[in-house]
Every structure is written in structure tokens, then in C-alpha cells.
């Protein structure tokens, strides 16, 4: 047998092993966003909701459970947004807004978003 043939056979052997080894099936993408709220809201809408939560928390006539529920939804929305789970993030954002009785978009005193997240294009509209 010639050397090139031997090398070709070896490569073919390795190529056969690779699929068998599952190397052709890569692991899912790396996760992220598990504690994204620690970095602050990435979207203006989230920032508006966070502000509204702060405001509502200081009011005597607010129902504290609604604020707590809104906060939970906001945390999830931020995490999901950071993880690229855009539809889920949008749903939780809406839930947080509803829990607060509606949050006007653009009310964020901080102005623009700090980060650009994976789902930025989802929040192009205004939430009332």
C-alpha cells in the first residue's frame, strides 16, 4: 500500500469516527441573562417600568402586591430579553405594565437604554 493511500484510509477512518462520536452535533449555545437585572434594564421600556415601580412603592394607596408582581415580571422580562427570549420578554413586560395599571413609554428619566440587547427591535413601539 502506498503512503498516500494509508493516509487517506486514516482520514476516512477519522471521518467515520467523528459522526459516531457525535461531534457533528454541537452543544446548544451558551446561556446568558440569568441575573441580567443586576446590570440594570437594557431597554427603555424596562427602565420606565422600573421607575414606575419605584414611584408606586412610595405611594400609600398602592396595592403592594401589584408592585411586587410587577417587579417579578420585570425581572423575568429583563432576563429573557438578555437571553434572547424576546417573545417571553415582551409578554412579561406587558404583564408588569398591566400590574402597574399601565406605564407610559418614555417616562424613563434616565433617557436611552444602557445596553443594546438581543431583542431591541421588539420594543420599538410605545407601551401605554
Amino acid at each position, binding site marked *: 500500500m502506498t503512503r498516500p493511500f494509508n493516509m487517506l484510509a486514516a482520514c476516512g*477512518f477519522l471521518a*467515520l*469516527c*467523528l*459522526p*459516531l*462520536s*457525535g*461531534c457533528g452535533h454541537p*452543544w*446548544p*449555545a*451558551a*446561556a*446568558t*441573562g*440569568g*441575573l*441580567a437585572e*443586576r446590570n440594570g434594564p437594557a431597554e427603555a421600556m424596562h427602565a420606565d417600568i422600573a421607575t414606575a415601580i419605584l414611584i408606586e412603592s412610595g405611594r400609600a394607596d398602592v*396595592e*403592594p*402586591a*401589584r408592585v*411586587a*408582581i410587577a417587579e*417579578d415580571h420585570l*425581572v*423575568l422580562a429583563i*432576563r*429573557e430579553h*438578555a*437571553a*434572547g*427570549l424576546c*417573545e*417571553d420578554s415582551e*409578554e412579561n413586560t406587558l404583564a408588569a405594565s398591566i400590574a402597574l395599571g399601565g406605564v407610559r413609554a418614555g417616562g424613563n428619566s434616565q433617557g436611552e437604554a444602557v445596553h443594546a440587547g438581543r431583542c431591541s427591535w421588539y420594543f420599538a413601539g410605545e407601551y401605554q
Partner: protein
Amino acid sequence: MTCPIRRLAAILVVALIGFIHAGAIASAEEAPLRIGDVLSLSLPGEEALTGEFAIDRNGEIELPEVGPVKLVGKPVGEAETITRDALSTVYRDISRFTLRLKEQKLLVAVAGQVAKPGTLQLPGDATVEVAIAYAGGLQAGAQLDRLKIIRDSREIVFNYKDYLDSGDPSILPALKPLDVIFVPISPLTGNVQIDFDAATLSRAGDGSEDGTAVQVFGEVAKPAQFAFKEGMSIVDFIMRAGGVTRYAAVEQIRLISSGEPVLFNLQAWLDTGDPNLLPEVKPGATVFVPILSEQIKRGKHTVYVMGEVAKPGAYDAQPGATFIDILANAGGPSRFADGRQMRILRQDGSVLMFDMVAFTEGKGEGPPAIEAGDAILVPEKTDNVQPSWLKTPPERAIHMIGAVNKPGRYEWSDEMSLFDLIANAGGPTEAGDLSAIRILASKEEAARPITFDMQAFIENGGDLSSVPQLRAGYTVMVPELPKDPNDNKSQWLAQSADRSIYIMGAVGSPGRYAFNTSMGFLDILGAADGPTSQADLRRIRVSLRGEANADPIIVDLLRYMDTGDESLLPRLAPGDMIYVPDREREWTEIATTDTVRVLGSVAKPGRYSFNPRMTILDLLAEAGGPTSDALQRRIVVVNMGKEVVAFHFDLETFVRSGDTSLLPVVRPGDTVYVPDKTQSRRARFMEGVKDVGQVIGLIAAIVAL
């Protein structure tokens, strides 16, 4: 009688008269002269010595030219001799001088309680009585039993009253010249001079202060002190005091004589006249007539009337008095009397019944004869003698039943309200439930139920028009609360479903409980002894059975505990159901969306409740952490939301770097898979090499064959 005999008789009579007179004169002239005596002197030719001369207080007569001549105590003859001798010193011829006693006089003084006190010249044989008469008589207030004669320095006290009573002259002392008769005033007149009223003195009695007076007081007309007199009985003294009053206890009169009390029954004495019943009254005794009200009346003919009569008490029933007489005297039966049950109690203990109502209707027997000592009892009507309930016709009656103090049938007027009715029925009992008053409105042949929450109305107020209007013929029922909130099993039949609420699952005492709209979620939870330690307080389910097609409400009680937000607690209504799930419930009962699945190389793979605020790290810790053969670099998280996306998490890198951006998003419903090391690429490559080698070896073996 012949003339000579008549002549002789006349001579003898004249001689006799002369002899007597001479004897009287002779005896008078023999008596010693006294002060006040009047002497008759005569000396012819001397006008100044002819006339009457009275012996003065000094016992002398005053002669002109001669002066006083003491003659008191001398007989007349001797007085004449003394006077003649006195005159002979002045006058030469006194042979024809005579002195004789013309008249005996008594010079006394009368003082004290008389009309004209003063010195009096009384006839020689005058007595005390004559002296008092000459002094104008006694004045009102004179103390008659203690008159006295003051003679020289001696006092002679005598009882003039006895003389007046008896007329015995020996009681009065003989008067002597210069005596002073003193009439004292009664000590009852006091020390101040007033216009004395004899009637007042009479009312005050005539007792003196010497301790012999008899005092009479108590229930007499004129209580006073009265002079003791022998022979006077206690009755006499009582009469002196004006007799007994109508309030006197005549059977209990007391006589205290010589320090010993004696009981005197005047009634018995009047009944019998037995003198042995009269106690002896001694000087200084006291008679007391007590008032009747302090005594228990008891007499020979006493009959007692008791009970429902106008004037119950003891009555003196004379022989022949009938039952009707006695009852009439007692004012007759009152309107509360039970005339059918009158009783006569005999002294021997027997009891006779008498139906007076039947007697008055002419049906029953007449009343029994009454004897002294009997007691007539007229009892009061008992409660069973009430106006018949049939007297209220149905069209004017309303029915009040259930948990009120006085359920029954009441006469009704449309101007009254439900509150009036319940108040008239005594209000609800302690167990009465005002939150669900049932009213059965009857009209003609139909009846419809109405429920009214009076409890809420009282607590919160409301429009009065919301209070059901009642009418005659209605039935109002106040239901009763269970006696023990936990004792529903024994009360479950009585507890209607529309007033109950159901609580089941992981609570201390699940079951059916009485409920009204004033109670809350926590009230019911507390009544059921609260959730157990295994209760899943985040997923309490409330079914609102009163609302059609209503989804169960999930109550997060833990969030309520954290926030205190009352809006998290549902508003319950009777008929709702509360279910408190158990944390350890069947796994199929736990919704997929409530848990995170942890699979693979962890100590405890399974389904875990997950808080969205947690991270994968909390989950892995709860699952016991990765095992020793876990491929920690390739932990896979499958997010199963709107999109199903898988990510891998490198725990080893995270642990080394602490980069939180590496943490995946984990939410309830997601799946976490921890592969083992055999899942690594190297392991799988070597496995593939191994498999290929085995295939080549097999082919080579076949070719070789």
C-alpha cells in the same frame, strides 16, 4: 192642859233656856282669850271706855289713858280684873266697870293660790274651808293635796283633796290665831306665769312630783300623769287618760308596778268581765298601751285573710260571721285572684277548697262555715290562665319562630317593622343568626321565601326600604348558628348550603362552616384551624360557585403575608369552596407550569417548585447538586416558553470566573439537564473510535476468512 199647868211649863222652858245660855256664857268666859277676840267694856260715864275692844296681834287691848293691857290667854274673869286694875291707876271710880267677851274671832292669813290672799278675821270656829272661802276661794292650778298651815315655824301639811272627796272634818287641822294657810300651785303649771287653762291642766293630768303619780302613755287619747288614788283600777287610769285610740293593741297593755311588768289584756277583760284579770295598780306605776301594728293580732274570734284580697290581715269575726262577710271585710278578691282555688285552712291542719266562681254562677256548693282561728287563702292566678291564643285571628297574627327568646304568635299591625317584631319577641338568642333571617311571605295560597341580612344592615346601615315589609300571616324565622364552629358534623343538616362555605385540603379542620358576608377569607381559614405545615400557601384555590363560569382564583397567601395587600384575598360568598393544596400532593396534580424539571446527573432529579427570582444555582442546590460524574461544563437548560430554546451552562467556568452573565434564564416550566461525563466530546470520540475499530476488525476478520 189647864191654865196653871201651861203657865208652869212656860216658866220651866224659859228657865231652861236661860240656864243653858248662862252655861254657855259661863263656859265661854272660862276659855282663855285669843288674839282677835272682841271684848265688850263698859264704864258708865266714860264714853271712851265703853265699847268693843279687840285683842290685837300682841294679845293686848289698847285702853285710853292707860295704854295696852295684855289679856291674851286669860280667862274673861281674870281679864276683867287685870283691866280694872289698870284703869284704877287712872280712874278713881271704876266700881261699875265691866268686861265681858262679846265675840270670839280668829285672825288668820290665807296665802297662795286663792282669789284674795290676805289677813282675815274669821269667826272663832272657822275652819280652813271657811278661811279659803273668805279668801275668795281657790284659784285654778291649786295643788289641793298639799295645802299647809304655817304656825309659828312649823308647817302642817294636809290633803284638802281628801277632805273634799270624803267630807271628813278631821282631815282639816284646827285653826289657831295667826295661822297662815298656804295653798300651793300645782307643779304642772310651770315656772312662768301664764293664763292657766284648766282644760290643759286636766289634759296634762293631776299627778304630783312625789313619785306616787301614775303615768299613762302610748295609744291613749290624753297621755299624762295622774294622781294615785286607792281603789282606782288600771281601767280607771286608762279612762282618765281619755281611753285607748283605735290603733291601740288592747291585748298587750303593760303595767309596770314596783318595777315589775305585768301584761293586761283589756280585750279579754271586756270579753269576760273577770276582775281577776285586772292587775293591781300601785303608786308610781306606769301604764303603756302599745300600738297595734307592732303586735300580732290574735284574739278569741280572729280569722286571717291572706293572698289576693284588697286588705289581707287578721279580722275579728264575731260568732255568726260567714265566709262572705269576712271576705267582704277584707275588701274582696283582687283582679289577680283565682276565685276557683280559694282555700280555708283550719287550725287542725285540714284544708277545705272553695270554688267561689262556681258558687257565684249558682253551680258549686256554698262556702264552708268559718271558725275562729281559720285562715282564708285567696291564691293568685297562675300563668296557665292566660288569654287564649285563639283570640288572635290568623288575619291579624304573625309567626315568629327560631332562635328568639320568645317565639310565638303575635298580633300584627302593618305599621310595625321586622325590627319591632324581633324586639317584641325578646330579640335573638345567643345562637341566633341575624345574617340570614328567613321570611315566608304568605299571600293567598302561595308563599315565597325572603332572606334578609339583618346583621349587615345593623353593622353597615342601608336604605330602610331594603328591609322586608311584613304582613299578617307571614312567618319569620331566625336561624341558629352552630354551637361549635368545629362541630359542623352534628349540625350539618341544620346548616343550609346557602349559608355555608366549604374549606378542604391541608387545613386543620376541613368541612362546611357557617358563613355570612361579614366574614372574610382569613376568618374561614382560622375557623378551620388554619393551614397545616404541609399546606402549599402559594396556590390556594377558591371556587366562586355563585358566579357562573368563574375560573378558580389562585390565592398566594405567602405573598399576602409578605406584602399585607388585602386585595390578594378574595371576597367570599356563601357557597364558595376553598381548597388548600398539600405540598406533598400527587405529582400529577402539580401543573407543569409550576415546576422546573431537573434531570440527569444530580443527586435528586425531579420536579421542583421554582421562584422566578431564583437562578439555576438555587435549583441545582435544591436538587442536591451535580453528581461526581456530571458533565458540569455542559449543563443544558431548555427554555420552554413562547419559544423552545436550549442553552448550555458552563458551571465550571462560572464557578472559576464568577461571571453572572453565564447564568441561564430558568423559569417554571423549563427543563434542566445535567449530562454525565460520557456525554463529553472526547468521550464520544473515543467511543466512536472504538466502534469503528470494532467494525474494521470485524471486516478484516471476514476478509481473512
